[in-house]
């Protein structure tokens, strides 16, 4: 069905995209990923049943092709428009159905929770994907610290709203501020990351600095950027995209090549840097780690 099974790395000469120095760096990251895989299967990119290679995308590609509608709907315009965005001081309010509500300064989060590298695939609902070496910590660690009460069933995230710094917020076609949500057990899964960095450095503004969510088995828009509020709730939170287009974007939005979507077929994708398309994997290749969350659920109904 697909043009070929030849690894895309053989079709696309990587040296065209990577300088030698970047190449060595990328090679190092893959090595680290393999090491990580050996001791923590959850963080592995190796467990994927994919025959095509998962090579991290270049920092150049990752930081110049961004969906961050608060700045612009033009993926190339986000980087320049977000250049002067102020990420200090930055507070994150954790509240709702928790025993220890608390507002954290970003510095506290960086100090309190050790940052680890996680190399994840990111699958955009627009049918392109990347491999990204994030830095961050499991959301579960933060949630454990604030102690959700027994009534808490969902986690709601809210992004920063600063129209004077974010020109895209002037668009009347969205229900700002950007909000997202997860079920509590999804939020507690070890794969769910609060990312603070990229390629070993702090997150650049266009990637959601200083704090963003990364949920690698869901379409990219679930991974909300510029988080200022995290609240535990007993009702399913409203999310920006399911409000804008309820038939198209459900609350779950798990990467799923099998469920025929009202509008999009999601059976294939293009990895940024590749020429040929590749098949999209169930749960973006993280089936082993997350499929149990949806046991007995009709994923066509809960899309």
């Amino acid at each position: 069905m697909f043009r070929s099974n030849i690894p895309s790395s053989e079709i696309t000469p990587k040296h065209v995209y990577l300088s030698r120095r970047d190449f060595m760096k990328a090679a190092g990251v893959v090595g680290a990923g393999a090491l990580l895989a050996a001791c923590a299967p959850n963080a592995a990119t190796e467990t994927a049943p994919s025959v095509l290679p998962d090579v991290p995308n270049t920092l150049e590609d990752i930081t110049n092709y961004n969906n961050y509608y608060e700045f612009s709907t033009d993926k190339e315009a986000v980087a320049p428009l977000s250049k002067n965005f102020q990420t200090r001081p930055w507070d994150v309010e954790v509240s709702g159905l928790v025993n220890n509500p608390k507002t954290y300064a970003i510095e506290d989060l960086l100090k309190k929770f050790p940052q680890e590298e996680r190399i994840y695939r990111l699958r955009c609902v627009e049918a392109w994907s990347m491999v990204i070496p994030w830095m961050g910590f499991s959301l579960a660690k933060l949630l454990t610290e604030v102690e959700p009460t027994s009534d808490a069933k969902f986690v709601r995230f809210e992004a920063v709203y600063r129209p004077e710094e974010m020109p895209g917020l002037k668009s009347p076609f969205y229900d700002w501020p950007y909000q997202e949500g997860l079920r509590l057990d999804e939020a507690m899964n070890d794969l769910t990351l609060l990312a603070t960095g990229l390629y070993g450095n702090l997150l650049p503004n266009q990637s959601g600095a200083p704090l963003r969510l990364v949920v690698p088995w869901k379409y990219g828009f679930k991974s909300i950027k510029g988080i200022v509020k995290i609240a535990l709730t007993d009702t399913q939170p409203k999310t920006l995209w399911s409000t804008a287009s309820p038939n198209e974007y459900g609350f779950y939005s798990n990467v799923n090549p099998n469920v025929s979507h009202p509008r999009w077929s999601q059976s294939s994708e293009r990895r940024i840097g590749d020429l040929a398309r590749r098949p999209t994997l169930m749960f973006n290749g993280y089936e082993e780690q997350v499929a149990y969350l949806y046991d007995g659920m009709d994923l066509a109904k809960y899309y």
Partner: protein
Amino acid sequence: MIKRYTPLQLLIHIGAWIPIARLVFEAFTGGLTANPIQHIEQRTGRAAITLLFLSLAATPLNSLFGWKEPLQRRRALGLYAFMYATIHVIIFTDLDYGLAWSLILETVFQKPYILVGAAAFLLLIPLAITSFDIWKVRLKKNWKRLHQTVYFIAPLVVLHYAWGKKGTFFALQGDILLPLIYGLILVLLMVLRIPAVRRFLASARTRWRRPVNSRNPAI
């Protein structure tokens, strides 16, 4: 004899190549973004829709300002629109989907926005083929009827554009600003074609043109 080109003709024939020139320039300067195939797809699509709309603007320009030359340029604009639509489709089938026809067919029927886009393209083909004078003679009255299907094709193209974006076009939610602008322009161009509106504009124009002399011959 050297053929003289009018300024409008020059503008059209130079302007129509600018999107391709820009893509070639970007290809050499690394400006095709991290997702070059999608970039070229979207750029040629937008060029096609823009040129199609310019061809549809010819008649309204004539009824608004009595400017006749655009009527003679419709064919060039329409054919350039078809050229970009063809490039757009070839990039989709060849570069994007690698001529994997089973996957292409699956995609066409699973994604309504591609279905309406494909329909619009197929409907444009007979218009492009019959755009030459010989067909105008052969088809007689039917030629006009055939070419009036563009009133059906243009909304399909807007729908293709709108549905291809994230959001709900008819609820004015999501990334719909550009398709909305094109949609409103199309509505305006169509309204200006309604015979009653055209007659009104024509009479308004004649009233404007020769008011002073006829009403006040003394001057």
